[in-house]
């Protein structure tokens, strides 16, 4: 038996998971239009490879990775490109982003799929993963090929697969593990090889017995039931629970010999390498105020309202959340596309999510600190953020905050603490950007002055030389 470790705090919000696990993963009908953002990952946006009017095949690359940290985007089905332009997307910034609009032709005509040699050279395999658009499907969407490169110095001992799924309502990983344990296990093998990891450990919260059973019978890794406590599925928390290692903010877990991936990412690694299929779809939980909550294998770019219609929209809905109720974001509308980061959409209603109560003053009860998995003092951070004392906030480790929301969840004064931290962080970033910009301007100015002086100097030297030559003649 593996020894499990404990992280500080955490909370036990009501699960609301049962309603969306009644049915197997559902396949929705093709929507009329797919809206495919070119920037669905951390790093730089992919560059559009298609023009309006062009016909594309299922699996064809339509966005090329650009720069070091980037990932490819593919046509999720065959059809015609209608346009390439700015559209509303599900992103915390709330800004529109460049999207390819694809009209499916219903033929599902594939590109030629070439299964790859699982024993191929690791460097080439990583490039293939980059070109297959494989990114972290747990929500962080960091390009996987980078995380699968331990570098020459580091030795990764443990590859951790994250099947904890700690947020209420979300069940997409649960269903994936129940139904596609084989894909996950095969993907894990490939990842283990790329990392040279000695062991593969899969952490699943003990509220998912069916998933645990399925994964155990798939074999190839150690399946560990971890206690159900939010945010036990946070990468840092899961690493702590399974290995006892605490990854400090701003450091990479690889440097400490651990690497962590979501189970759905493992499945897409399998598909990319063994089947030659890039990431074209993902499982999304549609739940909340709908008649039949459930999980859908949705093509990337499927409008969310198309899925909500499948699940049966109910009256009294008031917007939707992408992600879980603890860390999710408001969707600008339900006419935004499914993206690689979207694990769940919760349709809101007044009954499910009553309005927040008016905040009262902080009574310093420290319940927030007791619940904080990052072991911060949220009440102090709140105080400094509110007073705009950003220096102090940083001193009290503001940037170690993972925005899990536990502190707000337990605060008896109903203070929206996390909002204060987000605000403080964005202010600090803005200040830093400004400082950088002004530093850059100063540098440019100095450089210009320097160049003008150099020019002058050189001119003077040339003149001097000329006159010297003239004298010699």
């Amino acid at each position, binding site marked *: 038996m593996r020894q499990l470790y404990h*992280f*500080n705090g955490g*909370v036990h*919000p*009501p699960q609301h998971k049962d309603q969306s696990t009644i049915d197997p993963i559902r396949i929705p009908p093709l929507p009329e239009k797919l809206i495919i953002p070119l920037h669905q990952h951390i790093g730089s946006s992919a560059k559009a490879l298609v023009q309006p009017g062009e016909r594309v095949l299922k699996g064809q690359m339509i966005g090329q990775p650009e720069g070091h940290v980037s990932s490819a985007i593919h046509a999720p089905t065959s059809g015609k490109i209608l346009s390439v332009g700015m559209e509303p997307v599900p992103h915390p910034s709330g800004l529109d982003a460049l999207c390819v609009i694809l009209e499916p032709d219903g033929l599902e005509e594939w590109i030629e799929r070439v299964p790859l040699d699982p024993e191929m050279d690791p460097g080439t395999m990583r490039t293939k993963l980059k070109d297959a658009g494989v990114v972290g499907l747990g929500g962080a969407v960091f390009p996987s090929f980078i995380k699968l490169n331990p570098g020459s110095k580091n030795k990764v001992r443990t590859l951790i697969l994250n099947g904890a799924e700690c947020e*209420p309502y979300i069940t997409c990983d649960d269903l994936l593990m129940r139904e596609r344990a084989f894909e996950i296990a095969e993907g894990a093998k490939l990842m283990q090889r790329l990392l040279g990891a000695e062991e593969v450990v899969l952490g699943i919260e003990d509220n998912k017995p069916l998933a645990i059973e399925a994964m155990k019978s798939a074999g190839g890794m150690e399946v560990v039931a971890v206690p159900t406590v939010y945010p036990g599925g946070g990468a*840092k928390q899961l690493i*702590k629970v399974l290995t006892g290692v*605490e*990854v*400090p*903010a701003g*450091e990479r877990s690889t440097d400490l010999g651990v690497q962590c991936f979501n189970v759905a990412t493992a499945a897409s690694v399998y598909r990319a390498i063994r089947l030659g299929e890039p990431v074209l779809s993902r499982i999304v939980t549609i739940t909340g105020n709908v008649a039949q909550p459930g999980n859908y294998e949705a093509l990337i770019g499927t409008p969310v309202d198309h899925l909500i219609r499948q699940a049966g929209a109910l009256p009294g809905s008031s917007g939707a*959340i992408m*992600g879980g*109720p*603890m*860390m*999710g*974001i*408001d969707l600008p509308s339900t006419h935004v596309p499914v993206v690689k980061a979207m694990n769940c959409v919760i349709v*809101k209603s007044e009954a499910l*999510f009553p*309005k*927040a*109560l*008016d905040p*009262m*003053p*902080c*009574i*310093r*009860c*420290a*319940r927030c*600190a007791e619940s904080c*998995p*990052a*072991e*911060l*003092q949220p*009440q*102090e951070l709140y105080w400094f953020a509110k007073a705009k004392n950003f220096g102090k906030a940083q001193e*009290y*480790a503001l940037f*170690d905050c993972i925005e899990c*929301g536990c502190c*707000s*969840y*337990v*605060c*008896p*004064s*109903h203070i*929206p603490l*996390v*909002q204060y931290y*987000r605000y403080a962080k964005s202010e600090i970033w803005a200040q830093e950007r400004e400082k950088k910009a002004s530093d850059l301007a100063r540098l440019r100015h100095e450089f210009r002055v320097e160049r003008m002086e150099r020019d002058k100097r050189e001119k003077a030297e040339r003149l001097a030389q000329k006159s010297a030559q003239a004298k010699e003649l």
Partner: protein
Amino acid sequence: MNSPYITRSPSVTEIMVKVLAALIPAIAADVWFFGPAVLVTLALASVTALVLEAFMLRLRGRPVKPFLMDGSALLTAWLLGLSIPPMAPWWLIVTGTAFAIVIAKHLYGGLGSNPFNPAMVGYAVLIISFPVQMTQWLAPASIAQSHLDFSSILDYMFFHALPANTGLDALTSATPLDTLKTQLHLDKSMDAIMSLPIYGTIGGKWMAAAYLAGGLYLLQQKIVSWHVPVSFIGTIAILSGALHLVDPAHYASPLFQLASGATMIGAFFILTDPVTGPTTPKGKLLFASGAGFLTYVIRLHGGYPDGVAFAVLLMNICVPLIDAYTQPPVFGKKK
């Protein structure tokens, strides 16, 4: 709206209501030993607190209802009311409460911003300004030489009138802690002191037990953490135990120290006030053991019979410092 979209917190009101409920055993014991005058004191303190709270909220332009409903003013009133001698004159009660609510709480910024425990500020002001009235405790029913009926008590509290043939001395007695101090000054031995009639009553022990019961309920409900009561009680027990071992003739037993005066109410209800205490676990330990030390020293050498109130206020001053120096290391940055 923004994540998290859900909360589960008990509200401030719920917390305060539980603390108030935890005081009920002590109030019951108080009434049992000292009679219904205790209830009059509490009622008067409560009304004064609520009226002044509402008035101050209006003055400061704050919403009156949610803040009045938070229960914090009521709690201050009860804690102060329980520290004032039963049968204290009405103006004493009103003055103390007014100081607590208007000066100690609202002039310092209201709920959450006051550095000093309001009830203890009220108490300190009273005991400094009116030492006589504040130390005239109604003698426990069992040892009182004469007895007043309820209407005479009201007469005394509100009109300062006593029935013709009763003197105040016959009704009141010094508290056990007070008696101990005076008698030790008179060079009496501990054995002789402890055989005085005041120590024959078990009132003090029952009161302490009642506070302890309420405190255990608060611990069980996770309203207070163990750090403060354990460290406060432990410090007093260790200090008094050590001295008692060395010189039992001059130092009362630890059990006496724990069962007397405000030790228990202090441990569970006063030092645990979150607003005026530190927030870190280590800080709580330090804060409460500091208060325990000061309480004991004041009991031994101070000019006042009990030291809890002053100990609390002195430690309140240190809270920002304690918090700043006891910040626990964050995740991933330990050692």
